[in-house]
């Protein structure tokens, strides 16, 4: 039986009231002076037991009526009698940490022991649980089948997600006949994976029995927090090597320089792929007890140096913008942050490749060939920052934007701001890549700038608006072109156009744009089990080539929704889509590398002894339970009848007592 309003059951404490009343009634017996006790003493039933209650039948009726009343108010649900058949779901932790010495074998042994202890006719299923739950054996009564499935169990390289396991178990139980269910969870209970369990557990409607296997590692070394940048000597790669031991955590940052297209050292191996990406792996060198997480893979587009090219189209903007670029560049390591000035835009995009950022203020017209050079440079990973001067030829730019050659421009049209009044910048998207290194103070300073001449844009679809004018029109937009970006600011640093050139906010704005331009465009690696977005249609086919040369096919949506079914192991994968080839590196989660496991108290707190609020069962059971939801009326009716019976018994007892006195007297 379960209850729709279980809080009403607190009222059961009221059952004590009639008992107390009867006890008090017994204690309140009045004293009576009587001539002699001789005949009372000779009466066999003269003595009332000191602890006995008066009128036990009345008390029983009262207590029972109260209990039924409260049970009725708690809205009981009486479901059809559940089947005596019991179902056991055996969840085996298949996360990376289970690769620690002896844990997998211990898990298998525990699973075998559970299977061998199954009662006759008891059903069980075996589920391997990591980021996803995979059924190794469907629900069956065949022990041999289950034992064979145990041998198929192998820990993977991903993290564990208990919630997924419980959700899978709940789904499996939905399909089962109603009856008792228990979940046998076999895991090493890695310390960091217990968050958010309670809600899912409460929905499971089955008792969870934890089985901890394995012991904490003595010592584990692993790598994390990789960073990369372009230095003077080449690509600089660094990572933190962390040693987790019984004494605590210690760590040191290690750095590698990738100067050649390929190379191999004891702790690093890399090569340059055909698409320009650098792929390889680094290794933790500290001795430890767990080897599965010692190697860390990477795959990235080599970043550009923090070098900027300023195209000097006029003296004033060159002065202000150049000064800001000089200041921004000085914030970087001097060895690789440089500013170059040129009068003309190079004719070839390849001439721009050494630079992370190209800055250009547009006066008059922008030719289609100039735009092509800039877009080619951006497609290769560069960042182009255009500003519109007062003398920009708006009609020509609009015409170019409307043409096929100008499709890379981030706007559909632009118009001059109304002359004769002052304008200000308004909202800014400080989460956008180009502005993410700016402080709020800089944004406020930008808003304080008075603009006399500028342009308002109608952004092209897919373009991001970084800042707006105070009236809401777009003022600063960005669009992705290949691996790079093109930024367009609708005001220049000319003093006649605005106060931007002399504003202290300008160096900060320039720094943020330059730093973003010099950063890698993609993460160095993904965590196993995390969704991978290739930026293609979900139904697109992806050809996946593993390091071993094995080739598989998958939908792009699968990489988003079930990544662990596609990428089972850490490593480097080549992904080929209609947009081209790309390499991704996958590493196990750092949470699986911590040496210590949850202590017994934590495991106890989360799992042990949690009885389900309602018996497990399928939809049919629940529907039947809901149909039986009116049973409370019968409880209240029964309570009412009992109260009437109580009144009747009380009245009858009183009259009988009176009659007995009178009757005996008359007999005498």
């Amino acid at each position: 039986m379960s209850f729709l309003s279980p809080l009403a059951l607190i009222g059961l404490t009221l059952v004590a009231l009639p008992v107390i009343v009867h006890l008090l009634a017994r204690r309140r017996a009045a004293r009576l002076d009587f001539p002699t006790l001789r005949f009372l003493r000779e009466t066999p039933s003269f003595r009332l037991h000191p602890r006995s209650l008066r009128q036990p039948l009345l008390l029983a009726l009262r207590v029972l009526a109260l209990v039924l009343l409260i049970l009725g108010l708690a809205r009981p649900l009486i479901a059809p009698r559940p089947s005596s058949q019991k179902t056991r779901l055996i969840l085996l932790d298949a996360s990376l940490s289970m690769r620690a010495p002896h844990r997998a074998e211990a898990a298998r042994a525990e699973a075998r022991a559970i299977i061998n202890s199954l009662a006759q006719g008891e059903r069980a299923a075996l589920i391997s649980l990591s980021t996803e739950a995979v059924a190794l054996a469907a629900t069956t009564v065949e022990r041999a089948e289950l034992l064979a499935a145990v041998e198929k169990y192998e820990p993977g390289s991903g993290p564990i997600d208990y919630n997924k396991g419980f959700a899978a178990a709940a789904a499996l139980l939905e399909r089962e006949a109603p009856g008792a269910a228990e979940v046998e969870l076999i895991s090493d209970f890695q310390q960091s994976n217990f968050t958010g369990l309670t809600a899912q557990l409460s929905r499971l409607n089955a008792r969870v029995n934890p089985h901890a296997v394995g012991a904490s590692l003595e010592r584990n070394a692993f790598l994390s927090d990789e960073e990369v940048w372009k230095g003077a000597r080449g690509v600089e790669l660094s990572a933190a090597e962390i040693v987790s031991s019984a004494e605590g955590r210690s760590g040191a940052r290690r750095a590698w320089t990738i100067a050649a297209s390929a190379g191999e050292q004891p702790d690093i191996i890399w090569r340059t792929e055909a698409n320009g990406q650098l792929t390889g792996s680094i290794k933790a060198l500290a001795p430890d007890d767990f080897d599965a997480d010692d190697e860390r893979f990477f795959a990235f587009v080599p970043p550009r140096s923090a070098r900027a090219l300023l195209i000097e189209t006029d003296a004033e903007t060159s002065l202000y913008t150049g000064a800001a670029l000089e200041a921004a560049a000085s914030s970087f390591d001097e060895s690789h942050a440089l500013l170059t000035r040129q009068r003309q835009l190079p004719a070839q995009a390849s001439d721009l490749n050494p630079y992370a950022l190209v800055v250009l203020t547009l006066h008059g017209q922008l030719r289609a060939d100039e735009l092509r050079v800039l877009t080619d440079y951006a497609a290769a990973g560069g960042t182009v920052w255009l500003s519109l001067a007062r003398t920009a030829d708006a009609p020509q730019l609009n015409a170019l934007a409307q043409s096929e050659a100008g499709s890379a421009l981030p706007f559909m049209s632009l118009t001059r701001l109304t002359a004769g009044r002052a304008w200000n910048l308004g909202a800014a998207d400080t989460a956008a890549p180009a502005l993410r290194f700016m402080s709020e103070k800089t944004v406020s300073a930008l808003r304080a700038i008075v603009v006399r001449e500028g342009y308002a844009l109608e952004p092209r679809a897919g373009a991001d608006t970084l800042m707006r004018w105070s009236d809401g029109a777009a003022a600063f937009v960005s669009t992705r072109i290949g691996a790079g970006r093109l930024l367009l600011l609708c005001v220049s640093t000319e003093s006649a156009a605005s106060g931007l050139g002399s504003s202290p906010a300008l160096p900060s704005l320039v720094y943020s744009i330059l730093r973003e331009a010099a950063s890698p465009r993609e993460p160095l690696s993904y965590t196993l089990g995390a969704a991978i977005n290739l930026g293609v249609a979900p139904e697109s086919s992806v050809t996946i080539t593993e390091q071993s040369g094995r080739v598989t096919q998958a939908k792009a949506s699968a990489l988003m929704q079930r990544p662990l079914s596609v990428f089972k192991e850490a490593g480097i994968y080549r992904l080929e889509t209609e947009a081209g080839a790309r390499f991704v590196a996958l590493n196990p989660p750092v949470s699986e590398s911590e040496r210590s496991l949850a202590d017994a108290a934590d495991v106890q707190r989360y799992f042990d002894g949690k009885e389900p609020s309602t018996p497990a069962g399928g939809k049919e059971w629940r529907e039947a339970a809901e149909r039986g939801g009116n049973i409370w009326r019968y409880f209240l009716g029964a309570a009412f009848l009992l109260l009437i019976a109580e009144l009747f018994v009380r009245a009858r007892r009183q009259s009988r007592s009176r009659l007995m006195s009178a009757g005996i007297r008359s007999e005498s």
Partner: protein
Amino acid sequence: MAADSSNTTSATTRLLRPSILASIGRLDLIARTVVEGFLAGLHRSPYRGISQEFAAHRPYIAGDEVRRVDWRVYARTDRLYVKEFEEETNAPVRLLLDTSASLKYAPGDASKLDYARYLTAALAYLAIRQNDRVGLVCLDTEARERTPARGGQRHLHSLLALLERISASGQTRLGPLILREAGQWKRRGLIVLVSDLYDAPVEIVEAAVRLRRVGHELIVFHLLDRAERFIEHRGTREFRDLETGEVLLADADRVRRSYIERMDEMRAFFLREFTRAGADYAELDTAEPLDKALAVYLRRRKAKGSR
């Protein structure tokens, strides 16, 4: 006329109820009210004929008591005549009053002791009115307030005053005490025991047998209240023994039947044994009028006189 007589009788009976007598207060008034009321209705009551009978008139001679002159005859005949009764025994009447603590039981307005007091006073009044000598002994742990048998109004007043001040206390052993008192009496007479008889029944009966054996007449008035006899109390009570102070917790409703059986056994025992011993045994409900007791007394008194 018949209706008038009936009204008079019922009014008298009502007057004799203990609850009404308690409101009168003074014991001498109570005694007179009871006895005169009783005698006034006697000729119309079932007790008719048990009074001391009038025999004849004889002419007054010097030395006769003036109060025995029949003034009604003098009024009609203008001669002095003296009333002569059938017999004047002048035998002593000894009233034995139980004053043990159990007599303090008072379920209503009057206690059993009050009832015993009214009864004893009425008997004394009646006896002295009939020229008997009356003595009184109060019995609890000892024999107290021992008053020798005498006649006359002054003696009656002293008896009534004594009865006014007595109180109930202690336990009693009636049998031995009665025998001890009887050993001091030189003349045989009428012994009236007023008691609830809560003592060793065999000892009491033995005492009665021995009193009868030496020639005493014996009347036993057994006082029992209705509430006491049927345990008219309800529910669980702490019953405290008025004599011993002992306390028992019991549910009156549960023990009632068995209690009454025991009580009836005792009543039957006394009735049987006193009858066998030749004593008059009368059970008196303390809620009922005293006329029954007076009738019993007169019947015994007449029997003794005719012997």
